[in-house]
């Protein structure tokens, strides 16, 4: 069998010219490919070398750069860079019709992108967008987020006439109050209304140094009477201005800790919070491990160290000033693992 088969196969005619042409074109194609890969590699090493040289040069020149080179802790890197959602949003809007992006920490760590346009458009870009967002996240070392690309939800829920009426009423009241307050010297931080059981109420944020609450309440009630709104209760929220100022200063610090700690799987962080009531400013970190976990204690110490290193760093100094603060680390089941005052 072997011989006759071989003989038969060898009778298959060879289209020599075509075959030679196919082979030489294959080698040609291969050469191009080899060259392009080599070129790319060359360029990358070249670019890396240039960057490296620059880096070394600048490290000699600038002490700040040298510090950066020695070691910039992760949270400080996050602090120095733009918030991730801004970066992603800018990148995507260059190329795609994106309505909005969102980031959620709980119940799951997710990154949403909402795409406008037809179903076909959505289908055609969703994978590319997902890939690009994932790349951007990865370039910062963020690996905890799941990326979701969605279409906008239909949000044309019917507005019932009753609440429309309420909204109109409150709008009128607010305008009148605002006009009136402009002429007075009452320190009012913010003004709003609320509905509870279909009853309108006025919400006022005022500094806790403002003592004329009764007067303000009376003025508002008069305006309400003019508009035939009946009795409108006024709720005062006394704001400690010092605390508010402190909150404002700490805001970027807290959001940096939030973004940085949540974005990486290895930190195992479930939630971040803060409060300065009662003093001092307290940063809460909730871990993803229960208190029963054998590593919980160690992880808590590590987390505390990372957060504290950042708060005490030179970059955070401007925001933190000399405020006393406290770091509290919770386990998943809300047991306190670590509590330190500074």
């Amino acid at each position, binding site marked *: 069998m072997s011989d006759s088969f*071989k003989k038969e196969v060898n009778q*298959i005619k060879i289209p020599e010219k075509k075959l030679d042409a196919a082979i030489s074109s294959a080698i040609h194609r291969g050469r191009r490919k080899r060259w392009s890969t080599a070129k790319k590699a060359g360029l990358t090493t070249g670019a890396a070398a240039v960057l490296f040289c620059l880096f070394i040069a600048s490290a000699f020149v600038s002490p700040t750069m040298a510090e950066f080179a020695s070691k910039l802790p992760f949270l400080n890197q996050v602090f120095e860079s733009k918030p991730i959602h801004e970066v992603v949003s800018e990148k995507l809007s260059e190329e795609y019709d994106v309505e909005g992006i969102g980031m959620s920490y709980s119940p799951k760590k997710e990154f949403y992108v909402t795409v406008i346009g037809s179903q076909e458009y959505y289908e055609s870009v969703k994978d590319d967008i997902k890939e690009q967002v994932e790349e951007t996240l990865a370039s910062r070392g963020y690996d905890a987020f799941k990326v979701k690309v969605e279409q906008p939800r239909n949000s044309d829920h019917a507005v019932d006439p009753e609440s429309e009426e309420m909204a109109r009423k409150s709008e009128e009241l607010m305008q009148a109050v605002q006009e009136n307050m402009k002429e007075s010297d009452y320190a009012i931080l913010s003004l709003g209304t609320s509905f509870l059981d279909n009853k309108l109420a006025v919400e006022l944020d005022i500094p806790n140094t403002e003592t004329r609450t009764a007067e303000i309440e009376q003025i508002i009630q008069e305006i309400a009477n003019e508009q035939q709104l009946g009795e409108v209760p006024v709720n005062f929220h006394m704001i400690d201005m010092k605390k508010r100022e402190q909150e404002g200063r700490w805001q970027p610090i807290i959001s940096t800790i939030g973004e940085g700690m949540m974005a990486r799987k290895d930190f195992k962080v479930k939630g971040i919070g803060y409060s300065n009531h009662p003093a001092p400013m307290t940063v809460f970190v909730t871990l993803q491990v229960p208190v029963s976990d054998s590593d919980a204690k160690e992880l808590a110490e590590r987390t505390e160290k990372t957060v504290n290193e950042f708060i005490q760093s030179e970059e955070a100094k401007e925001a933190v000033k000399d405020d006393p603060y406290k770091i509290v680390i919770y386990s998943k089941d809300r047991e306190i693992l670590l509590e330190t005052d500074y």
Partner: protein
Amino acid sequence: MPQLSKVKKAKRGNDKAFQELVEEEKNKLYRMAYLYVKNENDAIDIVHETIYKAYISIKKLKEPDYFTTWLTKILINTALDYIKKNKNIIPFEEIERYETNEKVPIAENLDLVDALDRLEEKYKTVIILRYYKGLQIKEIAHMLDCPEGTVKTNLHRAINKLRVDLREECL
């Protein structure tokens, strides 16, 4: 061994050595490809793809002694991929041929080759390797990454099918 030194040269990126090696193998490669697809153009395409793949990856060839085996393996995989990709496409010439019921002679007296065409891909492969390339069962098993037992079974089944087929034709 002249071939061995050529393979080593080719591995280092010497195009001339690579071309010479291919020159020695090209007819066999073409005929194997032809056995899979049974038409000139497709066979040429498969050879082209095979040479291209070999050219860009020859650096990764670990044992220069096995150049021919390695090249054959690439060809088989390329041919199988090619068939898979084109499974649902019937070329125009073919449709015409079905209609006119006219046989295009590829060469005289190729009963066995014709019969081979009616076999499944996996049977074709073992027959080609065993009887055209003259490889041992062990070598075939190594090349296809499967146990020797499987190769033997497939070979037996392939031969039996060919026998039945050819006998019917004689009647």
